[in-house]
């Protein structure tokens, strides 16, 4: 029975994939999430699928309420993603999707740090194929950057877990807290995947580079797995509150002026993660409920937004706001779904964001984090600006681009409508969602105070939008790239090396010429050493080999005889 645990089902299906025709593979992508879901429900709370490996006891199925809600939403996201990517014939993407979704579910079900690490790396490796599958030079480079950062996160997790194991003799994945170097390393490993400020750039860099369907899949899993891991290991860690607050605020500004709508959504994803991280940081039952609920709703509406922008990209070949506009005339279904997603993320009453975000806001207010609370309120207005208004307005309305693409294909429409319906249903009947939350809920989102406050906030923000548009103060959509902290490793570091070398050489005037040439040559051309024919890689002649032998012999004798 434990061999039929959901993650294993996904992996088995991925193994099966190469044997099937593309139609059957697409079908498999629909069946597997359903099977996985059924299998998930068949497990009772507790530890299952325990294997002894390398002298460790690995728990692959730790089923409790917290892991349950995340695996449920991951299964739903996998299914919706499967419907949305029905047209995809590319087996690499299909296999990657299965492995990726399975690994993410495995990650949230992992009961110990080692199996968590296994799935942690598996998500990294599997997901990069969704980026490479775009098959362009740029997506290859982007994927490499993404992979290196993701693997780095895994490496930190591994280093941390080894240290932690050395300290405590336990690999259990329960509350860890920031108590030792090991737990700090694990924390940073989680933080990278959770896109903490200054570790966030992989997200905005890579999601716009994935395929149309790949981005939808990517948006659901990696970051939310990290949120789950934080909630499991670091609930109530105060620093998270402030990290989260910063995360909600700074991406807003970048989203506001970003032209590529998929990157806008990536920034907005970052901002939404901030809310969840704040919830984890507060760590009370209510706050953790809020985090889980918000992750649940967020996966749906963010997928919905990525789906609608993806559909536009699929039909027009671009997702740049400056190239779009007026599409509502021929893509009304996509537009309406996008509006539902926008309303959900902006947390309009009756939409899903409202019922989950208020939990986190209230938790921060009740625990007297007033400044943080205020930051979240401001961020809520900011969410409206980039995801609520900018995405639908500049894509489907605004100035008419003259593009008249066909409506999204039927399967995309089905996926979008299904997701939209879920968003609205959760918004209207939050009870069903609340029943899934990790702790018992006594919370009523639809009080007069709440609705009034939220409506005031949103309507006046809308009014401000109208005001700014009238005054011509709203920034127009222009083509371009906005710098972010990734500039440090994409431009500065590669560019700085020669100038550092130059500076050093200027100081040391005596050896200026020779120094600069030697050192900058070394740095610039380190590859030449290693290239075929380079010194390190040359096929050595017999005499030079013998020379090396002699030198080594001398060294050995020197050490031994002295």
């Amino acid at each position, binding site marked *: 029975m434990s061999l039929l645990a959901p993650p294993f089902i996904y992996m088995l299906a991925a193994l099966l994939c190469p044997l099937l025709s593309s139609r059957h593979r697409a079908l498999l992508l629909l069946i597997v999430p359903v099977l996985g879901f059924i299998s998930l429900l068949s497990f009772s709370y507790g530890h299952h699928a325990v294997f002894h490996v*390398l002298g460790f006891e690995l728990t692959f199925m730790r089923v409790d309420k917290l892991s349950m809600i995340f695996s449920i939403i991951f299964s739903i996201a996998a299914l919706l993603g499967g419907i949305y990517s029905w047209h995809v014939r590319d087996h690499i993407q299909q296999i990657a999707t299965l492995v990726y979704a399975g690994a993410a579910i495995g990650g949230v079900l992992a009961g110990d740090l080692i199996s968590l690490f296994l799935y942690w790396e598996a998500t990294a490796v599997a997901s990069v194929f969704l980026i490479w599958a775009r098959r362009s030079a740029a997506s*290859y480079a982007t994927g490499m950057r993404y992979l290196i950062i993701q693997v780095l996160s895994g490496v930190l997790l591994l280093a941390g877990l080894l240290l932690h194991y050395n300290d405590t003799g336990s690999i259990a994945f329960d509350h860890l807290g920031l108590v030792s170097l090991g737990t700090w390393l694990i924390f940073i490993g989680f933080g990278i995947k959770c896109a903490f400020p200054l570790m966030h750039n992989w997200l905005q860099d890579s999601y716009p580079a994935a395929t149309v369907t790949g981005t939808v899949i990517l948006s659901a899993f990696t970051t939310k797995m990290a949120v789950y891991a934080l909630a499991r290991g670091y609930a109530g860690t105060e620093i998270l509150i402030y990290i989260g607050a910063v995360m909600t605020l700074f991406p807003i500004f970048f989203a506001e002026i970003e032209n590529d709508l998929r990157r806008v959504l990536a920034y907005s994803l970052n901002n939404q993660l901030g809310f969840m991280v704040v919830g984890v940081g507060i760590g009370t039952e209510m706050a953790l409920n809020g985090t889980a609920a918000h992750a649940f709703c967020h996966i749906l509406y963010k997928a919905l937004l990525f789906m609608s922008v993806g559909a536009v990209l699929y039909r027009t070949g671009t997702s740049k706001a400056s190239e779009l506009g007026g599409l509502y005339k021929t893509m009304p279904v996509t537009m309406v779904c996008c509006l539902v997603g926008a309303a959900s993320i902006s947390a309009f009453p009756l939409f899903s964001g409202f019922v989950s975000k208020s939990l986190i806001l209230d938790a921060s207010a009740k625990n007297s984090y007033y400044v943080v609370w205020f930051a979240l309120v401001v961020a809520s207005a900011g969410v409206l600006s980039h995801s609520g208004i900018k995405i639908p307005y500049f894509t489907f309305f605004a100035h008419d681009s003259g593009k008249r693409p066909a409506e999204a294909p039927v399967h995309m429409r089905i996926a979008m409508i299904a997701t939209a319906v879920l968003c609205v249903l959760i918004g209207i009947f939050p009870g069903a969602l609340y029943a899934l939350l990790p702790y018992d809920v006594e919370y009523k989102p639809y009080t007069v105070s709440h609705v009034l406050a939220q409506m005031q906030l949103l309507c006046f923000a809308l009014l401000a939008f109208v005001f700014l548009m009238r005054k011509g103060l709203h920034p127009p959509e222009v083509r371009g790239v906005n710098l972010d902290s990734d500039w440090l490793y994409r431009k500065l570091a590669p560019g700085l090396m020669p100038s550092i070398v130059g500076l050093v050489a200027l100081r040391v005037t005596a050896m200026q010429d020779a120094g600069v040439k030697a050192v900058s040559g070394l740095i610039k051309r380190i590859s030449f050493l290693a290239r075929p024919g380079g010194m*390190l*890689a040359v096929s050595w002649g017999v005499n030079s080999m*013998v020379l090396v032998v002699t030198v080594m*012999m001398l060294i*050995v004798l020197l050490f*031994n005889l002295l």
Partner: protein
Amino acid sequence: MIADQLPALQIVIPMLAAPLCVLIRRSFVCWCIAVLANVLVLATSWAIFKQVQSEGVIRYALGGWAAPTGIEYYIDSMNAIMLLLVSFISCVVVVYAHETVRKSVQTGKHYLFYAAWMLCLTGLLGISITGDAFNVFVFLEISSLSMYMLIAFGSDRRALSASFRYLIMGSIGASFILIGIGFLYAATGALNMVDIASRIPDAQSQRAVLVAFSFLTIGLMIKSAVFPLHGWLANAYQHAPIAVTAFLAGTATKVSLYVLLRFFFSIFGTNYSFGGMLLNVVLLPAAVAGFVLMSLVAIFQSDLRRMLAYSSVAQIGYIIAAFCLASQAGLTAGIVHIINHGIIKTALFMSVGCIIYRVGHAHSDSLDNLFKKMPFTVCAFIFSGLGLIGVPLTAGFISKFSLISASMERGWWMIGVLVLLSSLFAIVYVGRVVEIMLFRKARTDNPQPTGLREAPLLMLVPMYVLLAVSVWVGISGSATLSVASDAAAALLGGYQ
């Protein structure tokens, strides 16, 4: 009755198969003989392995002559592992070799190829089984001479010069080893390893022991291609017939590493080698520089075989680094990596061999979108490549994990960090090739041969057998770990 003579059979079977091949001369029949002999050898080594596991050390006096006079075969769990590894890899690769030999070796000389192969196998097994220091040298020469010959079978003319270089370097290494053994004999008056080990502490001339130690260090470093004495390796791997490369990569360097282990840990003893002689002062920097630099070099290679060759030098660096920890955990990690890397690298070379078989060469430039044409080969490359990187659930992960935890246990953090760094390099060099084979569109200016299709079944099946074993090792990691741990304990414990 036969059970008692297993150690002798281990050597006699391949040794007899070699002249048989020369007598018969029919290509196909010779191949059959080679396969049959190999299967028998594999069965024998499995039986020995089981026997050692259940009954402990086997000591077998060859021809009934007892130890000081005659040659003694001494098999503890370390030897048993090596026997099993060598015979298994040889068995898989010799099956695989059939197609490649037919294609690339001159028609009239197939029987010589198989005969040389059998001799080489004899030598490698002999090194792994014997308990006599001089006998080690003899078998080393048998295996090396036949290996030079095998490399020279390469269809490329550069194979000859590669073989010649290997011959020079190999002979230098072997002479160093011989000199070392000579000095040991002079100092202790014994050739049997157990006797040498027991007499070293009371040897008359400690200086002679010391010189022996130095010569053996360098000789074994050359033989096992430890950086910077790896110069012979890249060319030999690149130009040898592909089956030979796979065989060589999986066994020859590994057996030399075993000899190194045997001399430094069992004969000289851990305290002497790493305490008195500071072996790690020489070996550790070489190992670390090896795995960092050679991984870096591998990134830039356009020929897959050359890339894998440099990666091999890097992996040997890991193994040596693990030995230098000179602890139970470190030795275990090193031995596990000998096993895992032997299997993984052989599988990789086999998949590259399939590519060469069809495409004609293995330049990364002309492998665009190869997955479409040769899905099974590319899959095998990817899976074993993941193992090379050390992705979890592969065999490579087990060894890297144990290496890193062993280095942490010893408190040598930097080793762990550098191992991780060079794993990142491995991601790049494997990832680069995988990207080309999966995603890059075929270019018009560098067309692959028309009618390119999947490699023949006789090549795919052995490759996948090897892959299956590596997957099994990866998933049930504890099996190899416990075996390696036994072997490490046996080595550290010295001779009883």
